[in-house]
């Protein structure tokens, strides 16, 4: 019997998940700063356990256009992971990486999409790396895929994965700052057995 129950997460578990999120997001911020060649600060991430009905509102509306990067995780744990941010944040990051001022709106070009995928790859890679070294577990990410679409549509993917386990979704919200505030969201979706292994490796 698994110890993890999403509809009733103990404070102790919640704190550990929060700390994992904190460290992962911190590592991701460092990676982002190196890639963009600029200083990037990070606020302490918020960890939230949301009902499915609150998911859209947490992103600023179900129809808010977001960029989402999604990948599968294998190795000692299995599951998937997602990083997402608002379209305008994605434009800002891409502009910064490519050394041009993005216009901040509109459709992405092929090269911009490719750059965005790479940013997603680096951010999620850094996140998973820190998780791996913290838990001493082997975590192998797949090649990520990118989607620019409505928040609710993108989030249906993690929501469905959480939906197989309960009626809540665990969201880690991180605010990065370079010259502007950039909200980024991480969603880690280990399957139920992996949750036990993950928390077990930390002595819980």
């Amino acid at each position, binding site marked *: 019997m698994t110890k993890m129950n999403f*509809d009733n997460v103990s404070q102790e578990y919640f704190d550990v998940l929060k700390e994992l999120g904190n460290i992962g997001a911190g590592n991701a911020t460092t990676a982002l700063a190196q890639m963009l060649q600029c200083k990037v600060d990070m606020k302490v991430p918020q960890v939230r356990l949301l009902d*499915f*009905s609150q*998911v*859209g509102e947490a992103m600023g*509306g*179900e*129809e808010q*256009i977001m960029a*989402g990067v*999604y*990948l*599968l995780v294998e190795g000692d744990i*299995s599951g*998937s992971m997602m990083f997402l941010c608002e379209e305008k944040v994605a434009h800002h990051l891409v502009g910064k990486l490519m050394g041009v001022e993005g216009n901040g709106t509109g*459709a992405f070009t092929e090269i911009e999409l490719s750059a965005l995928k790479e940013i997603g790859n680096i951010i999620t890679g850094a996140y998973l790396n820190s998780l791996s070294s913290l838990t001493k577990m082997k975590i192998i990410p*797949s*090649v*990520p*895929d*990118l*989607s*620019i*679409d*409505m*928040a*609710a*549509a*993108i*989030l*249906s*993917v993690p*929501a*469905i994965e959480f*939906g*197989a*386990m*309960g*009626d809540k979704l665990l969201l880690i919200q991180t605010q990065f700052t370079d010259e502007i505030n950039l909200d980024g969201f991480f969603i880690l979706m280990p399957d139920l057995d992996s949750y036990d292994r993950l928390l077990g490796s930390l002595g819980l």
Partner: protein
Amino acid sequence: MGELIKVGMADLKVCISPDSITTLGLGSCVGIAIRDPITKVGGLAHIMLPDSTQIRNSTNIPKFADTGIAELVRQMSLKGASPYRMVAKIAGGAQMFAVTGKNNLVTVGDRNVEATKKKLRELHIPILAEDTGLNYGRTVVFFPENGDFLIKAVGKGEVII
């Protein structure tokens, strides 16, 4: 003009014309709109998973295609709709990301659409139109007055099926 009623994820609602029902940003989930053309009672379900019998924790009825559709039909009947006259339109079931695991080669979007069709067939409710699959999200609005099912997608404009 009637009221526009909103259906969330893993949720369902019933209304009577002139009211209409919407659900925003269907991804791999499926939106099932059912209507009785005589009483103009309409309902919309936003299901997330195909089969409640495959899941340990399955008390959330609107979350699954099988239980969600059955419940939608039940609630519509309570409002005066006849199951013999009901017709359906469906949308959603996209594959948002081209990443699939070893043990789920068929995507959850496809499985949701399949399970939806199976349940509707079981209940003898014909599907008049569908806009399913592919790789993008859809916002839908259903009008029980005439059965119009309006579908909006990012960068693709609007269609009525």
